[in-house]
């Protein structure tokens, strides 16, 4: 029996099919979840993929946060359900307060799409165990609202508790405070990041690197060990 990983589709979600593919490539079973459906269909983990849910109108992630499926995901996350938010999914997670902080428009005000180098700062979360502490990986980044901000107290707390999971290495592409690219909650089951690991799972496609596959193999191993 393999792990079942839910992939949520909101109106305006773009990377749901890519994320399902990444789950499949890692050897797990992707389960499509629909925003209007509260039922999580017994999945073992959930990914909130990237895109422009509800057109990013009002504020990125602000409307999706109120969808029926999120009620179940928020409750599940508090009980330890592993949740990964990528890009727009990360924005949704901050809107739900499962993760602290917020994302503002990039400091250069442009959409930016590039192969981005990251440093793994915490390899003990549900989604990063297959990486080495301090390892540098390159995965695509693509967003216009990617500048991570939080107040000093929260930033200090995140750092003190080792909850910064990824930092931008070499170059900070959007003005994120303390070069933060991704964070986790205190329990380590909820992770959000702006770059896109699901776009870096096949050597043929995109940048030609597979540095993103570790997210999906990490969660798969954790779930298979647990069962």
């Amino acid at each position, binding site marked *: 029996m393999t792990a079942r990983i839910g992939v949520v589709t909101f*109106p*305006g979600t*773009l*990377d749901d*099919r*890519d994320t399902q*593919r*990444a789950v499949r490539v890692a050897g797990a079973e992707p389960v499509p979840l629909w925003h209007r459906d509260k039922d999580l269909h017994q999945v073992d983990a959930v990914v909130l993929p990237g*895109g*422009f849910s*509800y*057109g*990013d*109108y009002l504020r990125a992630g602000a409307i999706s946060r109120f969808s029926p499926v999120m009620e179940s995901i928020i409750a599940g996350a508090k009980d330890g359900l592993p949740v990964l938010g990528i890009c727009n999914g990360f924005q949704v997670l901050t809107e739900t307060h499962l993760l602290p902080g917020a994302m503002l428009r990039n400091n*250069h005000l*442009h*959409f*930016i*799409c*590039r192969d981005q180098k990251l440093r793994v700062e915490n390899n003990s979360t549900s989604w990063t165990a297959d990486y080495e502490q301090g390892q540098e990986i390159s995965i*695509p980044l*693509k967003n*216009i609202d990617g500048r991570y901000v939080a107040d000093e107290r929260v930033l200090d707390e995140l750092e003190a508790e080792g909850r910064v999971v990824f930092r931008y290495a070499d170059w900070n592409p959007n003005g994120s405070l303390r070069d933060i690219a991704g964070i986790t909650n205190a329990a380590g089951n909820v992770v959000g990041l702006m770059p*896109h690991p*699901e*776009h870096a799972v*096949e050597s*043929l*496609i*995109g*940048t030609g690197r597979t540095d993103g596959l570790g997210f999906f193999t990490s969660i798969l191993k954790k779930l298979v060990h647990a069962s």
Partner: protein
Amino acid sequence: MTLDSVKHATETPDTEQPWAELGLKQDEYDRIREILGRRPTGAELAMYSVMWSEHCSYKSSKIHLRQFGEKAPANDALLVGIGENAGVVDVGQGYAVTFKVESHNHPSYIEPYQGAATGVGGIVRDILAMGARPVAVMDPLRFGAPDHPDTKRVLPGVVAGVGGYGNCLGLPNIGGEVVFDACYQGNPLVNALCVGVMKHEDIHLAKASGAGNKVILYGARTGGDGIGGVSVLASETFSDTGPTKRPAVQVGDPFQEKLLIECTLEIFKEKLVAGIQDLGGAGLSCATSELASAGSGGMRVELDTVPLRDATLSPEEILMSESQERMCAIVEPRYVDRFLEICEKWDVIATVIGEVTDGDRLEIFWHGEQIVDVPPRTVAHEGPVYERPYARPAWQDALQADDANKLPRPGSAEELRAQVLTMVAHPNQASKAWITDQYDRFVQGNTVLAQPEDSGMIRIDEDTNLGVAVATDGNGRYAKLDPYTGAQLALAEAYRNVATSGAKPLAVSDCLNFGSPEDPAAMWQFAEACRGLADGCLELGTPVTGGNVSLYNQTGDVAIHPTPVVAVLGVIDDVTRRTPVAFKDQGQLLYLLGDTKEELGGSAWSQAVHDHLGGLPPAVDLEREKLLGEILISASRDGMVDAAHDLSDGGLIQAVVESCLRGGNGARLVVPDGLDPFVFLFSESAGRAVVSVPRSEELRFTDMCGARGLPATRIGVVDGDAVELQGEFGITLDELRTAHEGTIPALLA
């Protein structure tokens, strides 16, 4: 105010009508009266005015476009040809691919962000309407002088619009062009291409058949935006002093379009539609008349049922509105409930606005009163056709006599080196990453190659690795020197780009951007370009499947360079065999394929170093292009080359610099016997490519070229961290990178 119903129009034959303000000519208005046997109602006049506009009716271009059909090469791959929303090509394994390139030039000058955004939206809906899932977009863009203040208004807006809309739809942007030339200052060219994939059985056509079938309008509500976009905007020349035409530009909502795509694909999957058409230029006037015209019966529409954003819109305005993100489907009554259910799932508004009748008229009602009663073919397909006078302009001879081959050339190795740097840093030859990095090229997870590669390549089957490649090319400078040859050079370059990536070219779509058809010189350029393109497609065996004509690209008396933009679609059986442009491995051998002649007319060198345009463009040899293509495809399939780059603007040195920078490796070049170093580096002779050959494959590769009669000249080796021309000069990759990548950010960031 009295509603101008059919009855009212019959009773008041002498009412003055605003046909001239709507862009119609006296004889066109007279013909409408003759067709109807009475004066048209206001609503009918609105429909005819938009549908008989240059943009919709192709009235000036039609007689020239016929050649694309008449000279079409026999091609088994063509499933749907010219005339539908887009052409469809068989790519094997049961898959069909549809693609088309269109213009949104005039709106993008008036309101760059929305003009460009809705250009993307419109072409995506065309592709969707064929039954396909859109899988990629590309944007060939042309702007005025890079340092002109208005370019700083137009370019960032256009780029943000292309990205803002396309990124939000989840379509990878995998190619295109960015070109600067003062001739586009008042008429930027914003062309947009979309590619879609479907199974053969999913092809849908725009026709309304089956009496009793329902007409369903779905998507966004209809608003007051874009009224008369095709007639008052796209079919007239801009004047410097006239009132702003901003209200004629549409406003896009990519979120709504994304829902429309997913909703429509789900509807297709359940086979719920008998015919479908997107609403673009000319809005409901176009969709209803084209659907009815192509079908077997008539159509009756209750116009007051159309959901509105603005309740005060008149019936005429509703018929002319170009509000975006709308589609019109013909649905059998038994499927209507399920259709509406799927729309509800995706939060898409859907309304039954009418039905197909067994008559032969398009009848439109407003609160029970008939306001339109027309034969639909007369609106959609039997508009006016003009044989505009055309004549080779008097200045053409002088332009061609001003020979670029006679321009002063570098007198020393040092000067040669300096001119290489000048050229690769020129805005037209510089890296466009600052622009294309604002587009998502990764989404959907099937992007095998994207710009700055020679072609964009998309995997369409994960199990078999079947893929398609598309390249778009155009060179207005060449076309200005000789429009016939210029059109063929654009075709040849796009064809070569597809083949260089390892894909077999199959079909063509074109976007023909020209000046006013009322100017005999511009019309001659158009006629010559069409003839060149049609002849070229016949010779290469790649039919034109559809496209778009954009005329009136001129400000006052000054037209843009004639700019035919050609898109070539190719198929590759196994995308893992693709050939990228990057020189990845040191020690590999560089071969130049093809013949290098002294051809500098219209060249990037003549522009960058001398700001010159004159002489003749490079000669075209399409037999040679075919042979080169076959060699490149074989070499890719059999693993004989690891990298390849087509030679076009900027010649050999431009290609080598790009491949070196992309791969992070230098190259040592040797001038072949009998060639002058300057000509070797800068000539733009067509039918050439540079390839990187592993030493183990050298013999096999050169044997193949020899056996097939393709000149292959060893010109150097991938080596070091500089581009070096032996005995002449060397330039480090760092210096080249600074020159090549610094220009555009310095101008725009």
